[in-house]
């Protein structure tokens, strides 16, 4: 039984090539988008860094939520979301640099509330100023990123440490108890950040006049389903390379069910946000949907629904597709690409405005994918792939749907 992951040379090479593509695109972007075009340079960075940070953070959420629910089925591959979550610190630093550059570099085409003249002349922004100002933004960002990194590392270290313990009933109880406490703490932080204020600050404040209470949940649903797709991709990759002996189609089936369910959940939030605004038809609310539904972003807006709702709904409906490795890989890639597109249409109509082929954004995205592959494969080697002392391991091995 192969229990210790060794990074294959091909995977390492792929990750370096992808990171190279990303860096090259960044350099080209730096040269190509100057002066009044610089908005696109920063918008691409904001879109990609927030998207990829949040989909890796979804792995921490996965661990915390399943721990708190006393789930046993995921233990056989628990080290995979753990390794993915360890990409959070690096991605958080990238995002922090980007948003600080936007706020303190006076990038008012991205966040027009950073210009104090606008704020003074604008009653809506003046009214929002106690929340939407540079210091609150900075403090909230530092606090959330710091807490995410703290809890992610804590969960990972606890899990690694438990491998060295003796297997006794008391240690089993202790593992469950301390994991539950930390998972509970993380979920409180997660709900107060991703579930409410963080997407308001980073993404919704692009359209600072507009507001939607669904927005954070919408962002969460988007990144959570993509995070599940990312976990599935790594699980299938490891399984196909002869690792994760205990993972079977039963586990894959459950991951497929999760992707299916949360694609529907995403669509539910997508629709709820749209319908309430459509029904009330108030100018200050419809401003957000004007360029997206009636402007040049219309094809992207509906493509978004097609990729992220109709495709997973019909594709994952059958039991056989959820138990098929190739089918899961296909739909996981579709979901990640689809939600990347979703983030693109969340950021761009309010910043760059025109619809252009996203070569620059795609290049950056590939760079982030390479970075995630590099960090995660590196992390996977640092611990055994099966947490052998976890009390629920047997439950996971005999798991049956």
């Amino acid at each position, binding site marked *: 039984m192969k229990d210790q992951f060794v990074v294959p040379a091909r995977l390492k090479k792929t990750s370096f090539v992808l990171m190279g593509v990303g860096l090259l695109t960044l350099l080209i972007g730096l040269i190509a988008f100057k002066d009044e075009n610089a908005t696109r340079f920063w918008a691409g960075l904001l879109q990609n860094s927030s998207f990829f940070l949040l989909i890796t953070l979804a792995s921490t959420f996965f661990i915390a939520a399943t721990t708190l629910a006393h789930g046993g089925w995921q233990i056989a591959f628990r080290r995979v979301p753990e390794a993915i979550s360890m990409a959070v610190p690096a991605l958080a630093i990238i995002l922090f640099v980007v948003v600080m550059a936007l706020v303190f570099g006076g990038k008012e085409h991205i966040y027009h509330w950073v210009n104090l003249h606008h704020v003074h002349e604008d009653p809506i922004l003046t009214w929002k100023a106690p929340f939407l100002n540079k210091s609150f933004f900075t403090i909230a960002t530092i606090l959330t990123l710091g807490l995410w990194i703290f809890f992610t590392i804590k969960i990972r270290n606890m899990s690694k440490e438990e491998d060295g313990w003796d297997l006794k009933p008391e240690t089993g109880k202790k593992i469950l108890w301390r994991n539950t406490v930390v998972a509970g703490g993380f979920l409180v932080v997660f709900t107060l950040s991703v579930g409410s204020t963080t997407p308001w600050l980073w993404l919704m404040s692009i359209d600072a006049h507009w507001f939607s209470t669904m927005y954070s949940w919408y962002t969460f649903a988007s990144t959570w389903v993509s995070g599940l797709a990312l976990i599935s991709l790594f699980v299938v990759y490891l399984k196909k390379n002869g690792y994760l002996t205990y993972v079977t189609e039963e586990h894959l089936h459950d991951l497929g069910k999760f992707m299916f369910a949360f694609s529907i959940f995403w669509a539910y939030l997508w629709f709820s946000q749209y319908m309430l605004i*459509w029904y009330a038809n108030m100018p200050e609310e419809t401003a957000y949907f004007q360029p997206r539904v009636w402007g040049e972003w219309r094809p992207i807006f509906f493509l978004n629904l097609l990729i992220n709702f109709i495709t997973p709904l019909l594709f994952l*409906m059958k039991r056989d597709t959820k138990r098929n490795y190739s089918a899961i890989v296909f739909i996981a890639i579709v979901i990640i690409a689809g939600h990347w597109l979703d983030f693109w249409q969340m950021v761009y109509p309010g910043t760059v405005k025109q619809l252009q082929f996203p070569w620059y954004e795609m290049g950056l995205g590939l760079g982030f994918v390479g970075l995630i592959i590099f960090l995660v494969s590196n992390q996977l080697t640092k611990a055994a792939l099966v947490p052998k002392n976890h009390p629920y391991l047997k439950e996971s091995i005999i798991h049956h749907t």
Partner: protein
Amino acid sequence: MAVKNFVVGLFDDEAVLFPAVKKVRTAGYKLHDVYTPFPIHGLDHAMGLRESSLHTAGFIYGITGTTTALSFMSWVFNVDWPLNIGGKPHFPLPAFIPITFELTVLFAAVGMVMTFCYLCQLMPGVKKHIFHPRQTDDKFVMVIELTEKTNAEEVKNFLKASGAHDIEEQQAEAGWWFGRFDKDDEPYLRKVKPVNA
């Protein structure tokens, strides 16, 4: 529906029941049914039951609900009685979606419950033979149907060897009949000669 001869055995534990079910199938006896106090994962597979088609039925009911809702609302607001509601178009798709969703769920749920009852032959006023009073309480009951090729004594010995107890031979109606479970009515077909005697 027919009265048949059965051999009934009780099991205390699912760990004993599972290998017994597998042995019965390899030995080639005709398994009538296994009654358990709670659902057991994988037992349907061990018994060799085919995949349920309930979910396909559910999908069809759901699609029917979607079509019914959309076509009915479109007909009402466009053909039968067009009204101007808040300046909205006559075919306001976003406003139709919640109702369409509800009707999809309603059709799927009610349809699947009824199909489930049909497949399991459950209905108020319909009664089936209970092989052992503790079959849904705390005992696992395995019922083997006797055919012209099986010998009752042989089956009894076989069940005993598999770990069953309280083994007995029963003559019972295999299907359902009209009756009530709270009344102790003997099956009215009792006097009939079993078809596999």
